[in-house]
């Protein structure tokens, strides 16, 4: 990934050239397209149903109400369970935290072994792994159901964590492998001469030098796992449904009239965690997605 901080082109001399008007005009219009849904989500979630029916979706609320947010978080029903999205939120936290940690540990060790401790066939496994990331998940769904059943962890948190670790492996391994191979080999050789072993070098040399790439992996995995829907549907049960699945359930579990304000508040709540990660991480996120591009 090249550095993004060096714009090319010449800086135009005047502010109000035709070029500039067209340039900023297009960028402004596109920005409206990108911002509109976020704006509509927030506005809709702050109105009551009467106002939604009367007014237009682009107008700001006449009377701001936070009730839809409260309802979406704590009261919205799926069947008899009326505890809103809060359960899904905590489920997602319990799924995301261990999945992120475990998948990053496994993949970083993989990448390290692939670069510094090549063994016969290691490149073959790596190639299969990268190919694997392009295989449609659908083809592996049922075999994984069987594997999880045989391991006795189907429908459990552990099962889902394992699935996330498996499917996060290709991209993360690629990420770490590329990073580790960019580190000077002399470091590794010197440590070998000093008699350090596999784990010793990993913990004392590789780990401290690789914090940026760990942060990138962290961002990648938090957003990726938080946003997962398919695995959440197929490999869990209602009790431990992640937030995305519960969101889709609540929105589709209509009792009487569709409550658009509650739906939009619920949608916002679900998008909040990745959005916060995105806004806080800034340019690291860009690096993460460029590196994670393989994930598709």
């Amino acid at each position, binding site marked *: 990934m090249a550095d993004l901080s060096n714009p090319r082109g010449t800086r135009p001399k005047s502010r109000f050239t035709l070029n500039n008007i067209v340039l900023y005009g297009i960028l402004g219009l596109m920005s409206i397209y990108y911002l509109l849904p976020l704006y509509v989500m927030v506005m809709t979630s702050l109105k009551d149903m009467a106002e939604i029916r009367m007014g237009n979706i682009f107008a700001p609320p006449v009377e701001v109400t936070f009730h839809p947010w409260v309802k979406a978080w704590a009261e919205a*029903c799926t*069947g*008899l369970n009326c505890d809103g999205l809060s359960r899904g939120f905590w489920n997602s936290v319990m799924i995301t935290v261990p999945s992120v940690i475990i998948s990053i540990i496994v993949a970083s060790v993989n990448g390290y072994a692939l670069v510094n401790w090549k063994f016969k066939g290691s490149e073959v496994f790596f190639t299969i792994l990268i190919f694997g990331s392009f295989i449609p998940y659908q083809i592996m769904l049922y075999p994984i159901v069987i594997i999880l059943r045989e391991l006795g962890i*189907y429908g459990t948190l552990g099962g889902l964590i394992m699935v996330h670790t498996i499917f996060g492996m290709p991209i993360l391994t690629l990420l770490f492998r590329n990073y580790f191979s960019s580190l000077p080999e002399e470091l590794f050789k010197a440590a070998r001469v000093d008699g350090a072993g596999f784990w010793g070098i990993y913990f004392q040399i590789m780990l401290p030098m690789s914090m940026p790439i760990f942060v990138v992996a962290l961002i990648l995995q938090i957003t990726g796992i938080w946003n997962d829907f398919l695995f959440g*549907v197929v490999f869990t*049960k*209602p009790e431990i449904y992640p937030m995305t699945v519960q969101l889709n*359930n609540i929105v589709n579990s209509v009792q*009487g*009239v569709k409550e658009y304000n509650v739906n939009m508040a619920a949608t916002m709540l679900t998008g909040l965690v990745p959005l916060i990660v995105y806004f806080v991480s800034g340019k690291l996120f860009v690096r993460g997605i460029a590196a994670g591009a393989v994930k598709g």
Partner: protein
Amino acid sequence: MKTFKIAALLATVALPGAAFATELEVTHWWTSGGESAAVAELAKAFDASGDKWVDGAIAGGGDTARPVMISRITGGDPMGATQFNHGQQALELVQAGLMLDLTDVAEANNWKGVINPPSLLDSCTVDGKVYCAPLNIHSPEWLWLNNKVYTDLGLAVPTNWNEFVATAPQVEAAGKIPLALGRQPWQSNLAFGALTIGVGGLDLWKSINIDKNMDAAAGPDMLKVFQAAADARKLAAKSTVQDWNQATNMVITGEAAGQIMGDWAQGEFQVAGKVAGTDYTCLPGMGLNAYISTGGDAFYFPKLADPEKEAAQKRLAALLVSPEVQVAFNLKKGSLPIRGDIDMSTANDCMKKGLEILAGGNIVPAGDQVWSPDVQTQLGDMQGQFWSTDMSPEDAQARYVEILKSGL
């Protein structure tokens, strides 16, 4: 082991006390307002008997929920009890030995004697053993009408499908949608099934679905049904909602004049405080043929390792069929009870119509009882397309025959 089972059974009758309090997770797809109210009755009764109902509702209808249920059972993480429709949906699970044998419960509670119609118990029976507890009868062949839409226009409320179609232009001219239809495939399939019995008649239905006469399916009488459906889809063209209860809500609010939907729609009218006969009209068999098919729901109990849970499963099975629960649940759900020996005098007009038809024996099995889920899914996909596009009745019929043949 055996004596323990019997002791546990006796205990359900003798002392429904806290001594046996066991948690059972129950999965189902009842998430609309009326459905939630009904399922709350089941939970209340089960909790009152000393056990604990852990609700596992799955939104999005049966097509969404069943995959989750089945994966959990085959994946080795079974729930305590789960809803399926009467018919073949759980057949392979039973054959694979994953379901609990309820024969002793059935015998102890004389299910053979009380369950009516007997075909429901037959659907639960595989190789002479009972594997499910029937809960209710739902018939899909009903036409629901908003009376006010018609009285406002100075029209008489239609008494059958033909009158409904005849008055549709006036309804449309008044800016209303004549026919509300949710856009999920199963709803189109349901509407078509209702038209088959209503317009095509009972003999045609039976010869195709029971005798599997493919010539009848490809014949001119069936083509008439497809033509009727083609007319009906024009009336529903402006209905864009997804869920059935949103469509029902359009009828309740008078945005639409009518809907073809199962008798469960009644629960929604009830929750909205509407009165059968005055606010809305229901026409079983589309007002043309007073027949209903006896679909509905049954509960299956996956095999669990824990003998205490197994005892609780059997207690729940017995409870679901018990007279008190049958009355309480079905009144809220708008469905018919699976036993004829209970007092349903508090039922409203629509349910009474259904009860009469049931008592008169004018019943046919439901689609799920005569066709496999594979065929039903294909029919749903085909009908979903037929009702949303301008596919010709002839093309649709040809594909209909092909799909049925795949299930022979």
